[in-house]
Each structure stands twice: as C-alpha cells, then as structure tokens.
C-alpha cells in the first residue's frame, strides 16, 4: 500500500510539472507544419516541408518577393540587359542565348567557416547536369551549357535560350563543394551518400541565418542562429519546427501551447482556418493570402459531349462560384476567370466572365440540342444522356465538399454528374497524365509568377501513346492562335508587347473554356499576436526566406 501511495504521489508530481515553454518568446519559436521532410537535399525531390526549412539555413541567388518582383538574395545585383550584366549572344549551335553575370555576396560563408565561392557553383552545376544524380527537374541545368569563373565570387552563366525570365535562377540551390564533392565521386550513388542525409547536422551545409542543430526524424527539427550569417542577425535564439500530420491535432497543439504558430505554406485547411479565426481572433492573427495554386476543372475535350463550346459555357453558368467562395471560404479564395492570378502583373481583367445564371445555362443547353428531359436529366435527339464523371483526389475534404455542391448545382439544370475519386498518386500518376478521365478532372496547378502555360495549352504537349504521354495538356486543347502565342511569348523581351500577348492568351482561354476556372487557393498563416515580420508571398517561395526579419514583441 505504501508503495502505491508513493507511486500515486510521484505521478501527481510529474503531472504538475510545467509543460515546456508555453507561448512564443525571443528565446524560442515553435512552428507547426503538416509534413516532415523525407530528405534534406535541396535539389532532390521538391517537398514543401523541405523548402520551408531549407530557406532558413540557406538562400537562393534570386527569388520573387512578396510583391512578385524578382530580387537578389545571395547575389549582389540583379543582372539585366539594361544594366549590361546580361548580354544576349549566339550559342555555338547558332541559337539565341544569353550570358548572365552574377556576384556572390562577399560575406557569404558556410557554417564551418569556408566562404561560399564559385567552386560551389560549379559543383552544383555538375550535379545538376548529371543524368543519374537524382535531381528532379533538370531543365535549368540542361540549358545552362557553360559557366565562366571570373573570380572566387563572381561568374557568368551561359544559357542556350533567350526567354524573358533569363535572370531568375530561383531553383539553383548551392551545394557545398568542400563537403559533398567527395560523395559525388560515384555519381550514381550520390543521392544515397550526400551529406545532407548522411550527416545532416554538419555546419558546412548551411550559410543562412540558422543552422540545423537537431533532427528527430518524423517529429521535429531544431535550429539555432548561425554565427557566419551575413545578413541582419535573426531575433530568435531557437526555432523548433514540428510536424503534425493530422490537422485537428495541429490545431489542438496550437491551442494547448505545444506550438506557437502554424505555417501557411503547409498548415490548416482553409475552412478550418476560417473557423479558427472566428473563435480566436483576440489571441491570434490569421492572415489569408490567396496564391498561385489554381484550383480548376479540366474538361476532356475529346469527350464528344464536351466538344461543343456551348455545353462548356453552360457548365460554368450553372455553378455559383461566387457563393461557394463566399459561403465555404468566407470570401478568402477569389473566383478565377482564367489561369492567371490577379496579383500577376500580366493579369487581364476584361476577359469574358460567366456569371451564375441557370437561365443562361438552360438556354445554351437547349440550343445545343439537349432538350429532352427524362427523370430530370437532359437527353438529346439521339437519346444520349448528358452525364459526366468528375474526378479528384480522394481524402481532400475541401475538394469533396466542392464536388458535392457542384454536383447538386449541375443536377438542377439537368446534367448528371457521378463522383469518382482516387488517391493522389493514381490521379496524377495515371489518370490525368494518360488522360484516362472521361469528363471532368478537378485539381490544382501550382505555378510561379508569370508562368507561361505552354505545357498545359500547346497542342504539341497533349500526352498520347505516340509521344509516350509527354506533356501536360490534359484537356487536349488545340487552338492555332494559342499555339502561336505560346511559342512567341517566351522569347519576347519587350514588356508592352508581352502584355498584349498575355491579354490575348487569357481571352482565348476564357472564350474557349478548355478548363472551368474555380478559384485561387489561399494559404492561412496562424500567428500569435506580437509576432511580426512574417510576410506571406502568395507564390511557392516560403516566408522563411526572410526569417531574419521576424520578431516578437509582447
């Protein structure tokens, strides 16, 4: 009995001990995200969780800031044709190319004291160009055919194409030559030997404001300030990034003080955040930033029922996107009319818009020959039923909600919709890429500022068995004018001319409607009151690229 009493007392004492550091402070900031990075190598596998953390410990040369302007982070001056640091030239094959000169920040130093130099640039380039190194997207490295080393800190890149975004090398993440070159001696095994995964706490891997000091695989990452950092010193003595997969548990962790903020890049779902904001706006700032995630519905134009543009327009007229945005998303996710985001400087607002009008939808459908109704569903003179299948990724609650709303709205104008969802890997892996969806496919495109939709709209990029399913034109859209515009726009350096071409592209898109635009998804940043400096960008480059500006005042 005595023993039991002792045990009870001990457990009580244990319970009453304070939970570690509740609430944000300058000593520690705990950030909650929904995924744990599987690898820490910056160029293999583009995971949002990894980019989020990587942005705290290193910097790319260039990136887009919160106003969507290209800026220098690691470089000293942005090279442009106007200031002479970028010079158009001919490549050895005679194509139009360009030579762009950059200078690395003079004080940029890896965490172990070795200066960031052009050696690292060359090494990163070698890794990127090697076919078997495991790097995902190598277009950047492929078009970069030569590098001139001008000094330890400056170099010239030679590209084999001249496009309007010639000076943006946002994804050129530097790898430390002095650490990883040895691991690259056998390129094929590099991805398994890289120090980023075999020795992830090595200071020499980082030159940003923070160093990774501890990793608890699957659970959290701890970061502390990096003494070799060349910018303004960061304000927090310790940053902990915790991965909590279940969004309900994520919210619980925030409310219980286990975490101080939730990252918008990978955090709460939009309706959850809206609900949270209503209940806790006195203690938290919830920032909603609509972004470059374009939620839409692809229409399979090879389905004979969808080939008629009147049917496509009717589909859009029949749904009330404004009310959905209003009711479901509290107006935080603006309705889209084309794939171009309103924050993009090339955005054209004067495109045809299809307001919610069941009358217009009905009229269009009648006109298109779907005027017999059997049990409420339209049929045409040949007796065919106006029915489509809508597919999206299973398990995404918001999408499932929207699907059911749309299904119901389309039913009221006589269109029958069956819902069929699949896990993301199937949906993106086969169904969309091999165009196995018969009617409607709902998903989101992530893009970047002024991203030319060549692979999604050009007729050469329709995936077929003949071209081994290359390309992302899943709707099978074929429009000669659009093709011509897409071909010319990338190389058009004159901004006024480009603006006009963009206008035309958006007009064709809205008139022909290969896609039903839905809305631009917003990210919700849940921050405690007093936390300043977090500036959501709206595109895929994280807020942590400016983490040295974050501050906390009680």
């Amino acid at each position, binding site marked *: 009995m005595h023993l039991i009493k002792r045990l009870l007392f001990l457990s009580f004492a244990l319970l009453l001990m304070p*939970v570690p550091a509740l609430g944000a402070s300058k000593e520690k900031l705990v950030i909650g995200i929904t995924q744990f990075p599987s690898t820490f190598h910056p160029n293999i596998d*583009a995971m949002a969780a990894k980019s989020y953390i990587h942005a705290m410990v290193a910097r790319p040369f260039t990136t887009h800031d919160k106003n969507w302007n290209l800026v220098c982070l690691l470089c000293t001056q942005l090279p442009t044709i106007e200031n002479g640091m970028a010079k158009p030239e001919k490549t050895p094959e005679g194509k139009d190319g360009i030579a762009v000169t950059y200078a690395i920040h003079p004080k940029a130093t890896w965490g172990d004291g070795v200066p960031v130099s052009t050696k690292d640039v060359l090494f990163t380039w070698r890794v990127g160009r090697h076919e078997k190194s495991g790097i995902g997207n190598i277009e950047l490295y492929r078009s970069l055919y030569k590098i001139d080393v001008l000094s330890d800190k400056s170099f010239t890149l030679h590209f084999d194409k001249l496009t309007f975004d010639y000076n943006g090398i946002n994804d050129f993440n530097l790898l430390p030559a002095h650490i990883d070159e040895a691991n690259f001696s056998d390129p094929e095994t590099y991805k398994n030997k890289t120090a980023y995964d*075999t020795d992830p706490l090595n200071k020499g891997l980082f030159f940003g404001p923070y160093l990774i000091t501890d990793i608890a695989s699957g659970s959290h990452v701890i970061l502390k300030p990096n003494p070799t950092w060349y910018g303004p010193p960061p304000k927090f003595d310790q940053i902990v990034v915790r991965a909590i997969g279940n969004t309900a548990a994520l919210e619980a962790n925030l409310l219980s003080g286990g975490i101080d903020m939730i990252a918008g890049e990978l955090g709460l779902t939009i309706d959850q955040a809206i609900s949270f904001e209503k209940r806790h706006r006195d203690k938290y700032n919830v920032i909603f930033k609509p972004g470059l995630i374009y939620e839409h519905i692809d229409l399979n134009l090879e389905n004979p029922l969808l080939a008629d543009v009147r049917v496509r327009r009717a589909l859009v007229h029949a749904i009330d996107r404004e009310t959905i945005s209003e009711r479901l998303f509290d107006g935080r996710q603006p309705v889209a009319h084309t794939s171009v985001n309103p924050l993009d400087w090339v955005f054209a607002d004067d495109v045809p818009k299809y307001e919610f009008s069941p009358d217009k939808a009905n009229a269009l459908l009648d006109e298109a020959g779907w005027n017999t109704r059997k049990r409420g569903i339209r049929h045409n003179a040949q007796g065919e039923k106006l029915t489509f299948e809508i597919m999206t990724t299973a398990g995404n609650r918001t999408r499932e909600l929207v699907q059911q709303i749309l299904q119901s709205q389309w039913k009221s104008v006589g269109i029958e919709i069956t819902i069929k969802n699949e896990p993301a890997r199937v949906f993106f892996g086969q169904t969309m890429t091999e165009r196995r969806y018969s009617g409607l496919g709902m998903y989101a495109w992530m893009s970047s500022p002024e991203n030319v939709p060549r692979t999604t709209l050009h007729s050469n990029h329709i995936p077929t068995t003949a071209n081994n399913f290359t390309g992302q034109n899943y709707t099978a859209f074929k429009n000669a004018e659009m093709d011509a515009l897409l071909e010319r726009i990338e190389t058009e350096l004159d901004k006024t001319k480009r603006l006009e071409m963009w206008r035309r592209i958006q007009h064709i898109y809205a008139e022909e409607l290969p896609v039903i635009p839905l809305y631009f998804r917003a990210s919700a940043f849940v921050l405690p009151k007093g936390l300043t400096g977090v500036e959501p960008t709206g595109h895929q480059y994280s807020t942590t690229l400016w983490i040295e500006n974050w501050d906390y005042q009680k």
Partner: protein
Amino acid sequence: MIQFVLSRLAQSTVVLLIMSFTIYGLMGLMPGDPIDLMITSDPKITTEDAARLRELYGLNAPLTDRYWHWLTNALKGDFGFSRMFSRPVFDVIWPALGNTLQLLGLSFLLALVIAIPLGIIAAVKPYSKLDYAINLFVFAGISVPPFWLALLLITLFSVIFGILPAGGTAEAAGVAGVWESAKYLILPVASLTIASIGGHTRYMRASMIETLGNDFIRTARAKGLSWYQVITGHALRNALIPVVTVVALDFGYLFSGALVTETIFAYPGMGKLIFDAIMGNDYNLALITLLLATALTLFGNFAADIAYTWLDPRLSFRKTRR
C-alpha cells in the same frame, strides 16, 4: 524441443518468404509509382524528367525481376535504400522502432497490469454488480473508435486542462529529456492501453471462471483457504495459460495497430512508417517494415507456445517430466 524450434523456424521462414512476394505483388497492383508522387509535389518536373527518374530507380523492369533482385540482395544482408528517405532502410527504421517499442512496451505492460487483476476480480464474483461494472468499463474501452478517443484525450488534457502536451516528442536530450519524454508518452500510452485492456480482461475473466469451476479449487476452498491464497497458489497458473496465447498474438497486432494513435499524436513510430511507406510506394521500406511486423507476430506465437508448455505441466515437448 529442438525439433519443435527447428520446425517452427522453417515454417516461419516459409511464411516470411511468401509474405514478401505477396506484398511486392500487391504493391505492384497499387496504381501509380513513386515517381508520380514526385510529380505531384514539383510543378516543374517534365515527363522527360519522370522517364529519366524511372530509369534511375529501376522502375521500368518487370515486377518479378525487381522482386528477385530484392530477394537476392536481402539474403546477402543488403536491404537497399529507402527511396523516400534516401537512406539505408534500417537507418530509417531504427529510430521509429525505438519509439514504437517505448510506446508499445509501456502500454502492453500497463494493459496487463490492469487487465489481469480486473479479470480475476470479475471472475471471482461473476454476474455481480462489480462484474457488470468492470465489463461495462472494459467493453467501453474496446468499442470506442480509436481516433475519437485520442482526440478526446487531447482536447481534455491538452487544450482544456493544459497539463499534457498534445503530441510530438521531447526536444531536450539526456537526463532532462527523460522527464520530458515521459510527459509526451502519457496520452498516447493511455490511448493505446484503454483500447487493449478490454480483450485481455475478458480473456482473463473467462479463463479464470473456467478454472475456478474445477474440483480442485472447490477442494481448496473447502479446506479453508482464502480466495487470495486459492487464486495465487492454484488458480492463476492454470488460468493464465489461454490468456498467454491470446496476449502473445495481440503483441504482433499492436505493432501496426498503433498507426492511428501515432498519427494523431504525431508520434514517429513504426505504424506511421509502414503506412507512409505503403502509400509512398517505397518498396524497400514497406517490405522490410511489413516483414518485421510479421516476424514479430510469428515470434509472439512461438513465445506463446513455449510459455504454454512451460506453464502447463501436463504438456511437454520433452520426454521426461521436469
């Protein structure tokens, strides 16, 4: 005895072999492949990139070839790399395994410590009010959906009372870390224990009731021995026999069944690892973790059989009695 062990070993190996092929085949039936997952997260990957990556990871070879390749390597001790984590499979497994053993070990022990006495008490006075109360309590535990229970515990103890962390693992290392880790383990362990007490208590109760119905018990009682003496001296050993079998089987289930608990409490254990590996189509990792889980269950059965014979003097593998 030796014969028994050897034949068991042989059987287990066959099961593991068949299991490995079945899983490989089933995963091959899963739609898409690992590269498709990469595509979903990176908008810039082109289809040429995808083709190149497939070639790099050897995903173009037919399934049987890949399986054979895996098998021959595994038998040499080379279990390959986890595609998702870019590290050797066991490097990924060890920390998760450690975490799971902590979690399961604690809840397993706690469940037994609570279930056995409860079962005995219920058996001594069956159909009494106490018995009903215990039954109700115990059935409640196994009838509640596990993630509902977990969220309930979190809401109660973390959000409302604020005395326990809602998930994750301890940040500090060393001695201070032990205290902290304990706090992080309390709710997950409670969640798992509540769910498993039910089965164990019921078996204990049923087994004890049956044992207590025997003549030798009545004799002992008639001789004037108290319930306590009767149970600890005579009944317990007999009653434990069937319970041991069931409990050993459960051990294997717990291993992967903690998945829900681990997900809600953001606890990086084997359950979550297995799930991520399967859904991420990471063949190497999924296979090894699943085989580990199977091996553990097989071992549990084996241990149960051994304990069975050790506890029951009437059964023996040796020709001579102990």
